């Protein structure tokens, strides 16, 4: 029945992080300075009894290229390659986009125009990614995958506009910007005491696993970053919804505000602090994104109130360092960065106003040269 990739192994120690595996995508971050991938030998751990095969249609053989293995490696680095996992009973199959990411030279881009999006094939929500020099980087996560539960439950229409995190043509530059909107989660949300969903978008990935049991840990914030960030800049518009409510959908006498912040943390320190290898992770979650001892700098929008009718407002948020940073450790990719945006600042505790809308465009991490 199930057809999952549950792990990826390679003979040599070539992974920088544990591969990031979602329900239909596997992103593998390589150690810096790994150049020879010709004899790359990856093994996928699957649901017991399941089998895996390359989805031949997804491989584009360049003209004149005879070496299939080389074509696979080239494409897996550039746009990724699809693999099909077939369940033991042969009745179910799932396609995974498998992407290898080289990390030398840094791979979390410093500028985001939110122009590149794809739509999830089954659930029809928007996924933000970045195209840089022809390569695709899937750096952004959002709560959209869990909102599909609300749409399934109430029989809502599964289309990109139904979700809290999506695009808008109301852009500061280019054709698109990111639009985050706080939404009602309907009868499903009411049942699980999570009546609203703030639109959110963050560097990292989203795990639907704990959305009912421990939603704060569903957001896995941060990816390795090899430069010292000085400021987070960008343009935004914010229109708070009229009525803020709490986790029981009872009115709260306050105005909604948005949240935009970035956190720079020592990933090596974070991981070393967890003695249990099973619990050791490379990311921060909703539980510790602003208070983990591994955090060295935070840049945060201080007043997330409405921006009125003034159009896009520029923000420049300096990183405030709480301790020293060893530059060579940063260069060696010991650190990670997380950017987090939300249409309701307290949306992680299900407090916010339905209809609050945050539009963000032309985000930039200013780094030390």
């Amino acid at each position, binding site marked *: *029945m*199930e*057809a*999952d990739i549950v792990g990826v192994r390679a003979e040599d120690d070539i992974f920088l992080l544990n591969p990031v595996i979602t*329900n239909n995508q596997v992103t593998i971050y390589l150690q810096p300075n790994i150049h020879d991938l010709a004899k790359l030998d990856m093994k996928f751990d699957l649901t017991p009894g399941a089998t895996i095969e390359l989805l031949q249609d997804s491989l584009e053989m360049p003209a004149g290229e005879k070496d299939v293995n080389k074509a696979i490696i080239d494409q897996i680095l550039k746009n990724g390659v699809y693999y099909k996992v077939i*369940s033991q009973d042969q*009745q*179910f*199959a*799932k396609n995974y986009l498998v992407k290898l990411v080289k990390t030398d030279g840094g791979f979390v881009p410093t500028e985001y125009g939110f122009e590149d999006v794809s739509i999830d094939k*089954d659930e029809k929500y928007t996924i933000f990614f970045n195209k840089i020099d022809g390569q695709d980087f899937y750096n952004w996560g959002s709560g959209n*995958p869990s909102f*599909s*539960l609300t749409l*399934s*439950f*109430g*029989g809502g229409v599964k289309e990109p506009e139904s979700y809290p995190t999506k695009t808008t043509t109301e852009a500061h530059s280019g054709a698109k910007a990111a639009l985050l909107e706080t939404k009602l989660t*309907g*009868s*499903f949300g*009411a*049942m699980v005491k999570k009546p609203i969903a703030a639109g959110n978008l963050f560097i990292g990935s989203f795990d*639907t*696993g*704990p*959305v*009912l*049991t*421990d939603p704060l840990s569903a957001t896995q914030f941060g990816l390795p970053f090899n430069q010292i960030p000085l400021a987070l800049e960008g343009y935004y518009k914010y229109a708070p919804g009229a009525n803020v409510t709490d986790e029981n959908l009872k009115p709260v006498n306050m105005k909604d505000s948005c949240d935009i912040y970035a956190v720079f943390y020592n990933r090596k320190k974070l991981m070393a602090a967890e003695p249990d290898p099973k619990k050791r992770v490379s990311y921060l979650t909703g539980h510790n994104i602003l208070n983990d001892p591994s955090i060295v700098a935070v840049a945060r929008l201080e007043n997330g109130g409405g921006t009125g009718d003034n159009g896009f407002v520029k923000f420049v948020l300096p990183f405030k360092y709480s301790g020293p940073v060893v530059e060579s450790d940063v260069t060696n990719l010991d650190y990670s960065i997380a950017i987090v945006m939300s249409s309701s600042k307290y949306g992680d505790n299900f407090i916010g106003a339905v209809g609050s809308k945050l539009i963000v465009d032309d985000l930039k991490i200013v780094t030390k040269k």
Partner: protein
Amino acid sequence: MKINIYIVLLAVMASIPAFIQAQEIDSRDGKLDVQVMLGTKIGGAAPLSLPREIRKIKSYSPNVPFFVGAKANYHIDSKWGVALGLTFEGKGMDTKATVKGYKTTFNAVNNSKDELRGYYTGDITTKVHNLYLSVPIQATYQFSSRWNVQAGPYISFAIKKEFYGEAYNGYLRHEQPTGDKIIVDNADYDFKESVRNIDIGLSLGTQYTVNRKFFALAQLDYGFNNIMKTGFESISFGLHNIFMNVGVGYRLK
């Protein structure tokens, strides 16, 4: 509260024989006799064979395991007879099981439209507490002075329906076995609206005559139809009421 209902119904049942007697049924040389009986039962709403989705049954206990009823027997000759009865009975069970890839839905309220569908793997409790008023029609055969057998169909009318439970320590694959994985720890389900109002089945039983008035009985009831309504998809296999009854009876005439 629940117990009070039982007491009231037991009192009603106990008064039936008196009522029948009051009607002065013509016994015509012992051709008609009336029995009252009560007892306990073991069984459950069970699949006909253990489906592969159920990996382990961790616990089982009968619930509402009682019957109380009356039966009128008409003796055609010294061997054969026919019987018509009225039985008030509980058909229930509480189970805990470990399931894998169990197609189900979770809902907050009993509303078939708003539900979370998928395939669940983990632990699940199932609590079925249904009360029925049953009418058996049986052929009886006396094959020795102490033993007789009865067999025949019954029709049961549900007068109280409960079918609910909880999923815990598991996960749901949303909509498809390949869908998003969602950890489930205490999700409730309630399927009582989907329990059929009528259950039809076959009984096969025997009675052992202890003395002129008292007898012991054992009877197997097997429900032909799925106890869940047609179109109910939240359990992928049919559930049948299968119960073994044991009890004692008293001949009024």
